[in-house]
């Protein structure tokens, strides 16, 4: 009950609008063990992001509860607040464009009054240097390559030592090479110090390559359809992408997701046809 990690229990979410009700999530349960790397895959519009938003505290839930390291952080009626214990890496990049990279990375520690500004700067510099990002401290995010931006954002999320790192399709819309660069980056960080990571994506290869487990979500209303363990050893390397274990797993996940994807796709087209 009070074990470390993120625990999502029977979470349901109903949206209300002028048009009526939409059930986005229905009885969603998922466990992310402490220092574990859990990936959720599902077709777009299946409610993955809603689930992440609930955990992050951007959205409230209408059923169930979410616990982090045993403490309840969200329940119906108990309006959650976002906090530095659950930091999000955003889909389209969440670095403040009006702050330099260094100011972005320092932002959390300074605002939480964990460190003095000078201290935070020092720590940020060191952290950036340790991942090969020195020399860009005074640059604005807009002047960086997309890969550098993503990396700086991950560092900004990690510097305050969150209890869980929430990643909302962070590598979406990047080209294949940049993506694989970032995969290696994230894996290397994780090998160095495993954080609890809750990762959302619709890229199956990415899901299997990165995660300890892959949970497949159904199309709306979102529910966890299947959880598959990834038996690949760590540290991972891109040579494993051709291994038998990987291919077998990929086939399984593809099958599970494809069905949902087609359903979601048809539903989407029907909706537009109206």
């Amino acid at each position, binding site marked *: 009950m009070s074990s470390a990690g993120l625990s999502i229990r029977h979470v349901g979410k109903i949206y209300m609008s002028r048009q009526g009700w939409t059930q986005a999530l229905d009885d969603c349960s998922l466990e992310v063990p402490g220092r574990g790397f859990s990936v959720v895959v599902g077709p777009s519009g299946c409610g993955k992001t809603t689930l992440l938003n609930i955990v992050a505290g951007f959205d409230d839930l209408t059923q169930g509860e979410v616990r982090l390291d045993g403490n309840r952080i969200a329940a119906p009626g108990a309006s959650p607040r976002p906090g530095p214990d659950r930091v999000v890496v*955003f889909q389209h990049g969440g670095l*403040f464009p009006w702050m330099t990279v260094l100011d972005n990375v320092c*932002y*959390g520690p300074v605002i939480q009054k964990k460190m003095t500004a000078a201290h935070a700067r020092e720590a940020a510099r060191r952290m950036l240097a340790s991942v090969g990002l020195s020399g860009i401290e005074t640059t604005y*995010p807009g002047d960086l390559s997309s890969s550098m931006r993503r990396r700086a954002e991950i560092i900004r999320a990690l510097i305050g030592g969150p209890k869980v790192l929430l990643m909302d399709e962070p590598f979406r819309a990047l080209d294949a090479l940049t993506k694989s660069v970032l995969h290696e980056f994230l894996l290397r960080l994780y090998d160095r110090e495993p954080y609890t990571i809750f990762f959302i994506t619709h890229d199956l290869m990415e899901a299997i390559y990165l995660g300890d487990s892959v949970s497949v979500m159904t199309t709306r209303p979102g529910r966890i359809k299947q959880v598959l363990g990834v038996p690949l050893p760590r540290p991972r390397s891109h040579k494993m992408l051709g291994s038998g274990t990987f291919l077998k797993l990929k086939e399984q996940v593809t099958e599970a997701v494809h069905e949902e994807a087609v359903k979601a796709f048809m539903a989407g087209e029907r909706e537009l046809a109206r």
Partner: protein
Amino acid sequence: MARTSYPALRVASIALLIAIWAALVRFGVYRFGFIPSPWSVLVAAAAYVTDRDFFLDAASSIYRVLAAWGASAVIGIPLGLLIGWKRWFSELTFPIVELLRPIPPIAWIPAGILFFPQIELSVIFICFIGSFFPIVLNTIAGVKQIDQTYFRAASCLGANDGEIFRDVVVRGAMPSIMIGLAVGMGINWMALVAAEMIAGEHGLGYMIWESYSLARYPRIVVGMIVIGIIGAGMSAGIRFFGRKMVPWQRSLIAS
């Protein structure tokens, strides 16, 4: 589309404009005979810019514009930020803004004179009305277009409401605020000229109108050119200032 350019044509363009002006006046086409010629304007300009009146007029116009612009920025920016950020505040105050917005600043001239017995204050008030709406509306738009991601990012890094206001709302809206300030300055000059013509004493708009009344026609054109130059200079100043304020977005305030 081809990006060919003809630099010589650009010079020719302006030369041609002046030549056509001179010819139209010289040969008195239609009523162009009433319009001062380029040469007479040049002579009048030489006389005017060395005159003490020039500095008096320019100084009082610039003072009025800057005062009005500053006041509308001081009131308009915070108001716009709040309207854009807090929904209840927007619902409470935005209808009033919407109600008053369609009234052009010039229509406020009689009211302005009525409100303030001193001419100085009423001219500044009319200019204030001119720049107030572009500044408020651009500030609101600036806040509204900030991606929700940044609010979320700030709050999950531990920022409270005040910090979100300081680090996300104000800074995110800054590019748009700068545009509002630039547009406001342009409308300010327009309102100023009208107010000075109708109600003013001193000032470049007043000078133009006085020259008309005293039949010193070339001076009218001199006044127009002086206003154009000062206005363009101030806009350039704002753009420069804007670039300093939003170093992360270089091309935004280019035009």
